[in-house]
């Protein structure tokens, strides 16, 4: 079966940079797979997303979406296959939640046509899937950070994509909303069969929820595979340059950072 997203031995260097932003990175995501990409700041996570979505062209290697080079997809067609929740977005004009989710139907609309009943049905389904139907008539600017993230995921779902890409979706969310978001994404993978590519800083949540991890360090793949194989004490300490201890919960590794200087008496 063709994977939804495949990166093969990708190399990329920004113009004028002294070293590669990505160096020999490979990745494959199929349906019903939750794939998380981890790494310290500047390790190439965002570059990887840009290459995966065809915004950058790899110097070597290939980036394929659904069997076709990422760069060759017309934007509107690509938006029917891949939904993206970027790190940041603007809200130039005040909008209601339902309106902003309806924007996710753009790739399905013809140039002069109106929104059809099926478009509104897709918006309703997306709102329900994200447990956001009660927010539908709220103004976007009145939402909390956690509610807003759910609405943005709903907009991506309204595109009815096969692959969902999320860039640091848990940033600045509190515990309840961050857990809620990961549960939501996991549910979409298990129940709706989506493939997910998530960029995140949070090793522990990635290990709890994802099927497969890719750990990057300065553009190089350090380890990839199931969480238990990737997040070993030695690997984590090397990549993040900090002493840690590892524990296991539900069969998945969890990392606890250590104090460098033990408190006296401890």
């Amino acid at each position, binding site marked *: 079966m063709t994977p939804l997203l495949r990166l093969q031995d990708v190399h990329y260097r920004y113009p004028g940079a002294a070293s590669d932003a990505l160096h020999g990175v490979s990745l494959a995501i199929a349906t019903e797979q939750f794939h998380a990409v981890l790494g310290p700041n500047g390790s190439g996570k965002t570059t990887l997303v840009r290459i995966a*979505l065809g*915004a950058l062209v790899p110097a070597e290697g290939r980036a394929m979406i659904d069997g076709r080079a990422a760069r060759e997809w*017309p*934007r*509107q*067609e*690509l*938006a*029917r296959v*891949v*939904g*993206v929740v*970027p790190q*940041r*977005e*603007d*809200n*130039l*004009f*005040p*909008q209601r939640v339902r*309106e*902003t989710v309806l*924007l*996710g139907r*753009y*790739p399905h*609309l013809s*140039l*002069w046509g109106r929104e059809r009943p099926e478009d509104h049905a897709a918006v309703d389904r997306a709102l329900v899937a994200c447990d956001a139907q009660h927010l539908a008539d709220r103004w976007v*600017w009145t939402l909390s950070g956690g509610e807003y993230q759910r609405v943005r995921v709903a*907009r991506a779902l309204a*595109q009815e994509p096969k692959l969902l890409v999320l860039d640091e979706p848990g940033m600045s969310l509190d515990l309840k909303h961050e857990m809620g978001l990961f549960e939501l994404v996991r549910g979409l993978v298990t129940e709706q069969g989506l493939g997910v590519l998530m960029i995140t800083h949070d090793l522990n949540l990635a290990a709890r929820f994802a099927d497969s991890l890719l750990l990057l360090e300065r553009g190089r793949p350090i380890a990839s595979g199931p969480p238990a194989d990737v997040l070993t004490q030695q690997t984590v300490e090397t990549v993040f340059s900090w002493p840690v201890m590892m524990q296991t919960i539900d069969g998945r590794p969890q990392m606890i950072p250590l104090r460098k200087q033990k408190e006296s008496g401890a």
Partner: protein
Amino acid sequence: MKWALLIVATVLALTASVVFGPAAVSLGELLHSDIVWNLRVPRALLAFLVGGLLGVAGAGLQALVRNPLADPFLLGLSGGAGLGAVLAIALHLSGPWALPIAAFAGALAALGLVYRLGLIAGAALDPRILLLGGVAIGAFAAAITTAIVSLADAAELRNAFLWLWGGLSGASWDTVLLVALYAPIPLLVLLAAARPLDLLALGEESAGYLGADIEAVKRRVYLAASLLTAVAVAVSGVIGFVGLVVPHIARLTWGHRHRALLPAAFLGGGALLAVADTLARTVVAPRELPVGVVTALIGVPVFTLLLRRWSIG
């Protein structure tokens, strides 16, 4: 309901500008009067068209430069057109079309320069640089214009000064026909970009991920809105505030979906300018105020109220 009100307002505005004028024409003679058919009707239609084009161009440019306070003349076109027109006056170019053609050429020159500046960093059009470049080119052209005006004779100076404040006294069936033939293509281009403009409010990155071809949309919107502004300025001078205030009022009433917003801004701008022009030629009859003075006198207080609402949210 709000569409019905807008259409009624438009019809009333057009009717008023045909019925009222400095020359007394009784209602019974209205349909047979040369003054009405050769002066008032084309002038009312031209005012409506120009106001409509400015309204649509303003709404499109506000979404493009991602600044709700942008005005179609902010992008340097008024400066370029003013320079062209004042040059034509100073050089005593004659013929009924000399002034519009010179103004149009000036506007196109400014458009080209600003567009080139907008592409300065590479192939992607940067709306922020468009805005800054527009202000800079406009200021430069205005400086040259002022230099020429300050060296001109008194009568010429008065003509140039009046032209810069806008006026529709040059209206004829020919100008109406010209605008009516010229405008549909840029208008359709803007209307076709309505949905991508909705997406653009989320930022270029998000709009791209939602399927919009951002670079193409930005170019088309900039060129179409500027071409509309250029023809408006060529036939009627610099009429301010219509392109700023009308899209705002339309946004408050119709929301931010450009499919509804652009037609509403067209009708609203047309109705407003028809009313403003009727006032401009009747309140001090037999003399005439530049219509830009009237739109500014109406527009500035309205705009102040809008700013308050905007800052309150």
